[in-house]
């Protein structure tokens, strides 16, 4: 009797364990099924490389090049903010901060990582955009530059936390050996600790990037929303995520527009999938390098 119950529990847990796999598969199936019609109609090449996104015109044009360019520009801009600031903060916490400072700052940064994206979007819209508009004398504050800045700040705590974790995995003996050889703390930090934590840090960077690409509400509110290829960093743009969020409500169910939005979702999914695989490989390499096993 007891034995039967044990077996039942074991199989029950096995079934539950597959939930994530099932959901992931479900997402892939739904995205593929809903986006295939538009690939069949427009053609995958034209869909990706046509720069005209006029989904409601007659006849409609479905080219997502301008949306992809917008996503890429904003993501790169955000990386320019969150990598130096996040990494710098992580190094500060690791090397300079006193134990008391660390005990306060680490949880504070972790808590700040939880500020919802809608709050960043709102803050960017009502405070940062008007401020930058006045400061730089640009026609509108709602542009790629502002979106990059806000998104970069948003990803900073994430990059900082993960990078700090990676740094703390570097064995003490590495640092001590370097100091004993007469290197000062800065040399030790930049030439011993950072290279040793290198692939762990790159995990932090890629995860920050993945977060920036997939972020929706902030860019929806701050980036300006013009679906054209921007001429400068200060033009309004419309990234992929914002396009889905803004247009799904008005797209007629089952229309080419509807399917095109799912196709954008599919492309986003594939991008983050690639980022995930890269982090997976990087973190495995990191653990092996420092002899932590898998």
């Amino acid at each position: 009797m007891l034995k039967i119950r044990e077996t039942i529990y074991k199989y029950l847990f096995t079934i539950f364990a597959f939930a994530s796999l099932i959901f992931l598969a479900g997402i892939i199936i739904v995205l593929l099924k809903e986006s295939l019609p538009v690939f069949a109609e427009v053609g995958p090449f034209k869909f990706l490389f046509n720069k005209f996104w006029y989904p409601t015109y007659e006849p409609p044009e479905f080219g997502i090049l301008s949306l992809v360019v917008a996503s890429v520009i904003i993501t790169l801009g955000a990386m320019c903010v969150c990598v130096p600031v996040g990494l710098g903060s992580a190094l500060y916490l690791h090397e300079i901060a006193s134990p008391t400072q660390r005990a306060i700052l680490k949880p504070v940064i972790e808590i700040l990582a939880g500020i919802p994206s809608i709050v960043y979007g709102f803050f960017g819209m009502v405070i940062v955009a008007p401020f930058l508009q006045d400061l730089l004398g640009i026609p509108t504050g709602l542009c790629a530059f502002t979106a990059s800045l806000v998104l970069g700040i948003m990803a900073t705590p994430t990059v900082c936390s993960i990078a700090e974790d990676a740094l703390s995995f570097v064995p003490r003996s590495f640092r001590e050996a370097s100091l004993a050889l007469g290197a000062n703390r800065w040399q030790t930090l930049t030439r011993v600790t950072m290279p040793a934590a290198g692939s762990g840090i790159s995990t932090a960077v890629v995860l920050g990037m993945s977060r920036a690409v997939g972020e929706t509400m902030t860019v929806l509110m701050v980036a300006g929303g013009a679906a054209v290829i921007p001429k400068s960093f200060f033009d309004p743009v419309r990234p992929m995520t914002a396009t889905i969020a803004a247009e799904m409500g008005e797209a007629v169910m089952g229309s080419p527009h509807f399917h095109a939005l799912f196709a954008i979702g599919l492309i986003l999914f594939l991008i983050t999938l690639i980022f995930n695989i890269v982090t997976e490989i990087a973190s495995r390499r990191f653990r092996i390098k420092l002899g932590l096993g898998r």
Partner: protein
Amino acid sequence: MDIANTGKVNALGADKKRYTDLQQALGFGLLFASILFCLFFLGSIIFFIAERGLAVISWEFLTEVPRRAMTKGGVAPAIVGTIYLTVGAIAFALPLGLACAIYLCEYGPRSIVVNIIRLSINNLAGVPSIVFGLFGFAFFVKVCGFGVSILSGALTLGIMALPGIISASQEAILAVPQSYKEASLALGATQWQTIKKVVIPSAMPGILTGVILGIGRVAGETAPILFTAATFYTRGYPDSIFSEVMALPYHIYALMTEGTHPEVQTQIAYGCSLILLCLVLGISAFAIILRQRSNYGS
């Protein structure tokens, strides 16, 4: 950096030392500047929203339904809606996530199956929130026929919270000392009895922390509920799990992009943002403090 030069003249060594000291001071200054910048920006977000939000928040704002095209009354239905969605999402994700973590730590053979599950959890964690929204819309709203409802929204949010809950539970379970389990098994308890009576109770604080952090994240999410649950205005409170709801994060977005009284709506959005910030940051601060306490204890 030339090795031949290092021992040559003492003065040269002193120069070099001065140079490296300067380099270190500059470098440390940069690091300090970066954390200052980070804290300044994040602090200013909280400051601006707290300052302008407090001016709007009153007892009426927290407890009344909106009136006169959003210009009067409060946002109580949005607060209630957010609570419903969050509770629903966690009620769905917690049992599933805990069961998955137990399987991975206790039952799962070290095999390709466990690796595949682990990979899929990692990938699910990286899926953009808007893609969850698309999935929820196509699957729960349309295929399952739940419509735009609390149920669809909570399930979508639940799937999104799942990876976080699994990894937090897994970490907590792995932290339970092997000797506890061995002692229990040696006393003749079966594997399930050991899990139920020994492993889960000892891992509970860690699991709870993970769950509370998950609640904080879920409560602030907007993109997954855009097309699955949220609406700008309901007459009163939702009456079943199949009704549309107002939710705080979506309400902020809608206030800024829809409606006819932008001035007043921006003020209300400040109020909503402050409530949301307090809710989310309060919840995660609670979890993090809880975790630090238990870490000091052990």
